[in-house]
Structure formats: C-alpha cells, structure tokens
C-alpha cells in the first residue's frame, strides 16, 4: 500500500494519471451542469413563496458547498505537504486556492443578488455571511502569501501553515446558522433526516452539486499539472512528457 502512496507522490506518475483522468471529469462536469441548469430552470416546480426567485439556489448552494469542500482539501494537502514533505501536495494546495476563491465569490454574489428582493438587503453582518467573507479573505491571504515569497520551499511552508490555521473557520461557517440566530436560513439538506425541500426540486440541486464537484476535480488536476511542470522544469521527464508522447 505504501508503494502505491509513494508512487502517487512522484510528479511524473501524478502527471500521467492526471492527464488520463482530466477529460473524464471535464465531460462529466459539462453533462451534469447542462442537465442541472435545464432541470433547475425549466423542469423544477416554482417555490410556494419565492416563485421563480428560488432558482438561484441551483448555483448558490453548490458554490457555497464547494467553497468549504475545496478549503478542507487545500488544508489537508497543505498539511500532508508539511508533515511528509511532499512537494506534490503543496502543488495541489496551491492549485486549489484560486478555484476555492472563485466559488466563494460566486456564493457571496449569488446570495447577495437573491437577498436584495427576498430579505430586503444586499448584505447583513450576520454570522453566516461574515464567516463566509472571512473564508474569501483566507483564500486571498493564502495566494498573496505564496506570491510574496520568492523561495519555493519557504512559500510552501508558510502558506501551508496559514491554510491549516484557517481551517478553524470551516466549522464556524457550517454551524453558524445553528449556533447563533442569523438572518441566513439553517441548512436545507443535512446528512441525517429528511431534507426540507421537495424531491422534484432537490434532485436538480444534487445534480448541480455533482457537476460542480467534477468541474473542480477537472480544473484542480489541470492546474496541479501546470504547477508540477513548472516546479520540475529542468528535469528530464518534463521534456519527455511535453515533446514525445
């Protein structure tokens, strides 16, 4: 089992596997997102209170879930890089950050657009919205710290520490709606118990979530490949991988 683990940690091996996997996830993402958008906009019934206004949920909820999921992945990769000194893990953490930041921004923007007509305001400083904004700044901080340090190894270690410390914010975002009374509503889908959403609406939400997930995997693999190539730019296997198939 450990040989498998060590093999995965080797950049040329990772490069080959990622090249093979990326198209699968890319096409799956495209199919799922097209199906989810169609289902969410045309097939799903309107909501009893918000009418068609609720449909922004099909972008908002998957983006918000992904923003947390990607952060946890980034922190785990950073921790693996820090503990076992795996450079590939640092490369993956670095590849995660801009994608996570984009999804966080998308969650905040779609939430804000929905909140203006429904709540009556673009923004409130309640616990859920504020902690999600902190998440965006954590991603920005991670990227800025990497960019600010020239030495690759030091940049890896410093940013990994920041990513690990920031993981404290993830449970705060997730449970903010339960711990404090917030303007943001509590979770609709939870692992335990029946979701408080009609199944005709929920199915498209889950399809969108799966689509966003595949999109993330496809993009993170592509970005990590580029990062790996750049780090190993003077090694022989890079030349072989790029010139001769």
């Amino acid at each position, binding site marked *: 089992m450990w040989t498998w683990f060590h093999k995965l940690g080797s950049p040329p091996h990772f490069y080959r596997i990622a090249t093979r996997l990326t198209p699968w996830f890319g096409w799956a993402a495209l199919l799922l997102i097209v199906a989810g958008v169609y289902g969410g906009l045309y097939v799903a*019934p*309107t*909501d*009893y*209170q*918000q009418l068609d*206004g*609720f449909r922004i*949920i099909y972008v908002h909820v998957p983006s918000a879930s992904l923003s947390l999921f990607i952060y946890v992945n980034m922190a785990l990769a950073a*921790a693996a890089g*820090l*503990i*076992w*000194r795996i450079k590939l893990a640092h490369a993956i953490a670095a590849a995660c950050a801009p994608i996570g930041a984009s999804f966080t921004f998308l969650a905040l923007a779609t939430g804000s657009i929905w909140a203006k*007509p*429904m*709540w*009556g*305001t673009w923004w*409130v400083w*309640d*616990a859920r919205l504020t902690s999600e904004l902190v998440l965006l700044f954590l991603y920005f901080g991670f990227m800025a710290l990497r960019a600010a340090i020239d030495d690759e190894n030091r940049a890896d270690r410093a940013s990994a520490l920041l990513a*690990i*410390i920031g*993981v*404290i914010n993830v449970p*705060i975002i997730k449970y903010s709606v339960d*711990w*404090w*009374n*917030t*303007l943001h*509503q*509590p*979770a*609709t889908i939870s692992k335990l118990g029946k979701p*408080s*959403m*009609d199944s*005709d*609406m929920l199915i498209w939400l889950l399809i969108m979530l799966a689509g966003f997930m595949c999109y993330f995997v496809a993009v993170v693999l592509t970005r990590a490949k580029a990062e790996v190539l750049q780090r190993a730019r003077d090694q022989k296997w890079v030349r072989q991988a790029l010139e001769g198939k």
Partner: protein
Amino acid sequence: MKARHQRLIAIGLVLVGLGLGTTFLLRAMNENILFYYSPSQVAAGEPPEGRRFRVGGLVVNGSIDRAPGDLEVRFVLTDNAKTVPVVYSGILPDLFREGQGIIAHGELTKDGSFRADEVLAKHDENYMPPEVEDSLKQVHGGAET
C-alpha cells in the same frame, strides 16, 4: 520519534489550541454575534437601553395595518410567547406577509412600540411547490388560510 511525527503532533496541537481559543472568544462575544432579539427577550428588558437593536419574530395574523396614502405600516411581531408592536415606513421585502419571520432594526419608543427603519424578511429552510403547500394546509385544517 521521527521528524514527521513531531510535525504531525505540532500541527495537531496548534489546531487544538486555536480551536479552544476561538471557542472561548466566540462564547465571550456571543451577545454581539446574535443578530436579533426575540420579543420575549425584549419584554424581559435584555436589549441594551437607549441603543438601536434588532427584534425578530413572526408577523401576527391580521395585525398588518397600512395607513392609506402613505408608506407607513404597523404590525405585531410574536415568538408565540410575547409580542412587540412595530411601526415602519418604507418598502417591505417580497417575503413580508402574515406568519412570516421578520427582523426589524430600530429602537424602542417610550410607548413600548418598536420604531423600525429597516425591515428584513427571514426565509426558512423549506422549499416546496405551491400544490404541496396547499395540500399541507388541508391536512392541518384550512383555518389558517
């Protein structure tokens, strides 16, 4: 002990320490993180006196009273224990209606009513098509409609 075990333990300790610290910090600040007070808390005098705060509750059925030719609207908020009468003049959000959760921002006036300058609608976590809502109402007795 190998170096990587030391690093693993160090990271674990940092996370535990930070987690504990954050927990205590958030508990100490609990009152400031609360977004709104309930009518019962208002009745008990919990909100700071002479300062603006938010009160949240359900709009009592039949309590909405609009002044003709004016944006002023009066309604009563309840948490099913105590009530707070609210006066507001301005545009109400889409989701404002009887029985809806509402959060009003403003201050208590001397006559015990709440003068709001911002009214926000709190949406709940339930999503369903109108037909489902109709059948739910029939099951629970049509008296609410």
